[in-house]
């Protein structure tokens, strides 16, 4: 944008008077952005600040009903959370889930994207259609579909595994063992996440110049070497973006756990998001919930550093 401004000043051409006139202080942009700014300030900035304040107070149900301001407690909430073993196990679980699910999703997404370049046209079309449907299904609905499929008594998954000779899976409860339960949740998240990853990466692959891969082939590179040394480096920015987005989404996992565990996840199924929600709205510990949210946002910021950088670059381009 710097460049544009300079051009306007330095090389006034015929037909440019409008641009020059625009350099006069103009109230129009302010007028245009005002409604958006007011809404963002009112419903994002203010609550964000309020959340921070709340985390240093002790908001109780009676404050809510009486409308009285809650007492200040300093770092009490943070002390309570950070010294609580349960909280740390929630953090660890959320982190492990994020790493595992994102790794599986991105690798599978890339594999599917590459596969789409290799299959015949009708198969590619079928893959596209199947993924579009999966992508379009709301998270809440897909979580309920999975819950139904792994139902202990009537679930089709138990039935099909039971068909394997020598395996007894009738009435098997998938959520009794948290490892199995998390395997189900991870499958659900990966299944629902692959369309975005595969379709985006495939769109990226179509933009890799064919001359480059052909040249590599002529020079005797195998498909694996071409992938490693040509395709992946070119796709790097895109891979970083989709990976970071997946991290953000999976780190904030809420819906799938919430639905699959009947809106009351047991301790082994809590993530940071469900934990903050349960503390705030289940136990009316709004301040504790706020403090957990603050810590979550801080952790997120660390995770998002990459994405934020990429965004700033986009912002700079304009």
């Amino acid at each position, binding site marked *: 944008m710097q460049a544009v401004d300079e051009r306007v000043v330095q090389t006034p051409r015929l037909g440019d008077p409008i641009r020059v006139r625009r350099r006069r202080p103009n109230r129009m*942009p*302010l007028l245009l*952005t005002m409604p*958006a*700014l007011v809404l*963002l300030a*009112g*419903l*994002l900035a203010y*609550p*964000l600040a309020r*959340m921070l304040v709340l985390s240093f107070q002790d908001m109780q149900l009676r404050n809510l009903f009486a409308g009285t301001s809650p007492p200040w407690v300093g770092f009490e909430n943070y002390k309570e959370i950070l010294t609580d073993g349960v909280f740390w196990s929630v953090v660890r679980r959320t982190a492990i889930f994020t790493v595992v699910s994102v790794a599986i999703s991105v690798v599978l997404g890339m594999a*599917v994207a590459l*596969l789409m370049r*290799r*299959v*015949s046209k009708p*198969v590619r079309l*079928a893959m596209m259609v*199947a993924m579009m449907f*999966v*992508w*379009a*299904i*709301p998270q809440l*609905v897909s979580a*309920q*579909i*999975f819950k139904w*499929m792994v139902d202990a008594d*009537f679930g*089709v998954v138990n*039935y099909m595994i039971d068909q394997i000779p020598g395996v007894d899976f009738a009435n098997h409860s998938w959520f009794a063992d948290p490892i199995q339960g998390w395997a189900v949740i991870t499958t659900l998240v990966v299944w629902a996440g*692959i369309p975005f990853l595969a379709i*985006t990466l495939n*769109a990226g692959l179509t*933009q890799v110049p064919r001359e480059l*891969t*052909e040249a590599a082939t002529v020079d005797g590179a195998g498909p694996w070497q071409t992938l490693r040394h040509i395709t992946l480096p070119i796709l790097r*920015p*895109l891979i970083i973006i989709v990976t970071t987005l997946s991290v953000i989404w999976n780190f*904030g996992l*809420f*819906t799938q756990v919430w*639905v699959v565990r009947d*809106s009351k996840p047991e301790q082994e199924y809590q993530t940071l*998001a469900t934990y903050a*929600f349960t503390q705030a*709205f289940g136990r009316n510990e709004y301040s504790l919930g706020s403090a957990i*949210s*603050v810590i*979550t*946002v801080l952790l997120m910021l660390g995770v*998002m550093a990459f994405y*934020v950088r990429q965004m*700033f670059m*986009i*912002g700079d*381009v*304009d």
Partner: protein
Amino acid sequence: MSATSHRSRAGTILANTVGVVFVVLMAFPVYWVLNTAFKPASEVLSFTPSFLPEHPTLDNFRSAIKAPYFLVDLRNGMIVTAFAVAGALVVGFLAALAIARFRFYGRRAFIMVILGVQLVPLLALLIPLYLMLNRVDLTNSLIGVSITYLVLILPYTVWTLRGFIAAVPRELDEAALVDGCSRWQTFYRIILPLTGPGLVATSIYGFIQAWNEFIIINTLNNPEKQNLMAWLLQNQTNRGTAWGPLMAGAIITALPVVAFFLMIQRHIAVGLTAGAVKG
């Protein structure tokens, strides 16, 4: 000499086989929800699941529609979504016009804010939002949720519309201005018609976001003031699980999104990669 020359026939067959397996695995849950929704209750609760309904029926859809609050929550969802999308389009278009067509002090900061707020996890803001709306008596109202959704989809709306407006050649507005059009005329004769498709695409995305949301509305409002998503959630928890009607309800809830999604699917990949690979 092409890259395909060393690709063997056997390799293609293998790839196609893997592709077909992938399609089956991806589509199975979708098929299973359809299969369940059209079965009568006796077939749904069978220990040996059948892979096609033996006696296909629409009973599940009927009982879902007749269930308490279904129609109310359907209407609520439509009102809230329509308000949020329309509001975000108007407010967002103005802001997008500003950053696409004007160079002004604070423009870059505004862009950063628009991009940055998309990273704020809305769930984290739920507590202060609840307290705030509760204070001004906007919990358990459609207005409070509508405004919240409007803000939820606003950043995306601004950023996408900016792209569409920027794609309209500036020379066109300038020519119109030179020819004696006022700024307002330039806007509604040149920019607005040319960004029409962009407005449609953007509103569909906003529609999907607002339609799919349920945590905010479920937390802020009582059953009679919710949308279908929240209805699905409560339906499952409160009265045991009637899987047939639930799956039918899930289909009804997902249908608009699937329909819209298929409408815009051509633009999805393009939008996703624009600027990411080339930029």
